[in-house]
């Protein structure tokens, strides 16, 4: 028993004497993985089986009797740039994904889907989660998500939804294009400027803040960092 600790102590001392070659958070680029099934460990004959568990209620079978539907009223809000408040109505929190929410917001606000970020408790949430995974089931009758439009008000009207029917499909041209034929004045200005003047525009700081929120995954911290950058730049 004690030898475990003695060995570990001696081993760590050796480790200290060697240079570090690989960071503890090193990740190979998954784009380089071979197209095969990854290696996983074989199961030992002595390993028991996990008791099989059928999904309690397969999502969406609410039509069957007894299956409880879990719908909640979903509202998305953005405090500023542009201020938004969109009610998405009653949604099934077990089958509506965050991506679905994004698509609805994109449609309502007429912006490209990839410019929409959804926040819960000031943190970004990933596309593939369903609402229920994010908020839990007991969160009251109504769910309110934060939402952020990258690029701010400048991208409004560039979603390609505008005059088109509600039923635009995901691959429709225009939706994925950046900036493009946006008619917002800011957009034009941002494209016309170069060099230091870019940093005088509100749009630049909004973009930076958007990037930081995405990278840091914490709206509060991102806001602080943006403030520090901006303060340092303007006070230079």
């Amino acid at each position, binding site marked *: 028993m004690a030898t475990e600790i003695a060995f570990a102590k001696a081993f*760590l001392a050796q*480790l200290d004497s060697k240079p570090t070659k690989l960071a503890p958070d090193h990740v190979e680029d998954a784009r380089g993985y071979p197209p095969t099934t990854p290696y996983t*460990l074989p199961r030992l004959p002595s390993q028991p089986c996990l*008791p099989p568990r059928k999904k309690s209620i397969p999502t969406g079978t609410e039509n069957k009797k007894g299956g409880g539907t879990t719908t909640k009223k979903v509202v998305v809000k953005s405090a500023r740039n542009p201020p938004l408040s969109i009610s998405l109505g009653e949604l099934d929190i077990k089958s509506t994904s965050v*991506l679905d929410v994004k698509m609805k917001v994109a449609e309502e606000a007429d912006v490209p889907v990839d410019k929409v970020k959804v926040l819960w408790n000031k943190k970004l949430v990933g596309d593939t989660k369903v609402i229920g995974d994010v908020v839990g089931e007991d969160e009251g009758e109504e769910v309110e998500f934060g939402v952020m439009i990258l690029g701010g008000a400048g991208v409004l009207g560039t979603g390609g939804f505008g005059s088109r029917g509600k039923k635009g499909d995901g691959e429709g041209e225009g939706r994925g294009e950046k900036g493009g034929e946006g008619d917002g004045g800011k957009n034009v200005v941002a494209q016309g400027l170069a060099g230091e003047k870019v940093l005088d525009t509100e749009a630049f700081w909004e973009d930076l803040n958007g990037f930081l929120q995405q990278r840091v995954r914490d709206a509060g911290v991102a806001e602080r960092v943006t403030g520090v950058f901006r303060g340092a730049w303007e006070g230079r």
Partner: protein
Amino acid sequence: MSTKIDRIIARLQKRIAEGAEGEQYEAQQETRLVAARYIKAENWPAAIDILANVSQALLRAGQGGSGGDLAVLLVDVYRQAGIKVDAASKGRLLACLRLFDSEEPTRKKFIKEMIEWSKKLGEYPAGDPELHHVVGSLYAEEHEAEEAERHLVLGTKESPEVLVRLEYKWYKQDEPHTAGLYAARAVLPYLLTGNVRAANASYRAFASTLSGENKSLSVQDVSSQASDVRIFPSLPLLNFLGLLLLAVQKGTPDLFRQLKTKYSSHIAELGGAWDMALEMIAEMYFGIPRPRQSNPLFDMMGSLFGGAPGGGAPSRPSRRVEAAPTAEGLD
């Protein structure tokens, strides 16, 4: 055009929601016919629209066979049309996936086709990480441990947490001294994909759940100037993993050999279950050539990190996992 297809979809959805079983089967057949027309005309958006919507309506109504059939056809259309892997195209498939009953036989085929599509038309030859994460999480929830492992190992930053929760649950079915066995089921495969971060995250999560749930379990933090490790005197294999993760960062062969010698009797008790994984790790991280033999699995792992397939040649440096000065992408 789009209003016409909208009308067809709305009518079919209504029939499925209200209809008896025969009606629903007919709705499926009609959808196949309509979709075939659009496919022939290469009107992909319309074909995708009707297949996605009717498939989901059928799955929602508990018609797994019919709905699954159309969902598989939907993936087929994606491939024919060359639809790229993006948020919208994935979202549509995941919406279908979530509606499947876990017992539905067509679900497995759908998952397989979906992953194959993401290999062919996305940037990840092993399949899209987000799709792997969702599929793996689904299997984990259903206690399909080994299926879950195969997907979560190729998943996202969030996958280790799901995988460890599953392994821990599995561990609780087994004897208390087998903790290392279950932690290894996450740690070693992650090391083998070159994902040191996920391997570390898995180890930490497993060890802290273990000590959190077993207050009486003896544990001691051992530290030197630069490193820390939590040692469980009664769980040598778990300690082996903790020390291995530290040694991987240094990458010198003597460290690996010491560890293997020290824990050889415990590893031998596993009847060879870890041997292959450890040989591959020895080569990838410590430059120790694996025993000479041509083995298709080794060749496959060899090609993982840029080495030419064919295997056998000792210590090919390009095969090693090394730090590269690449900035982490936005994710």
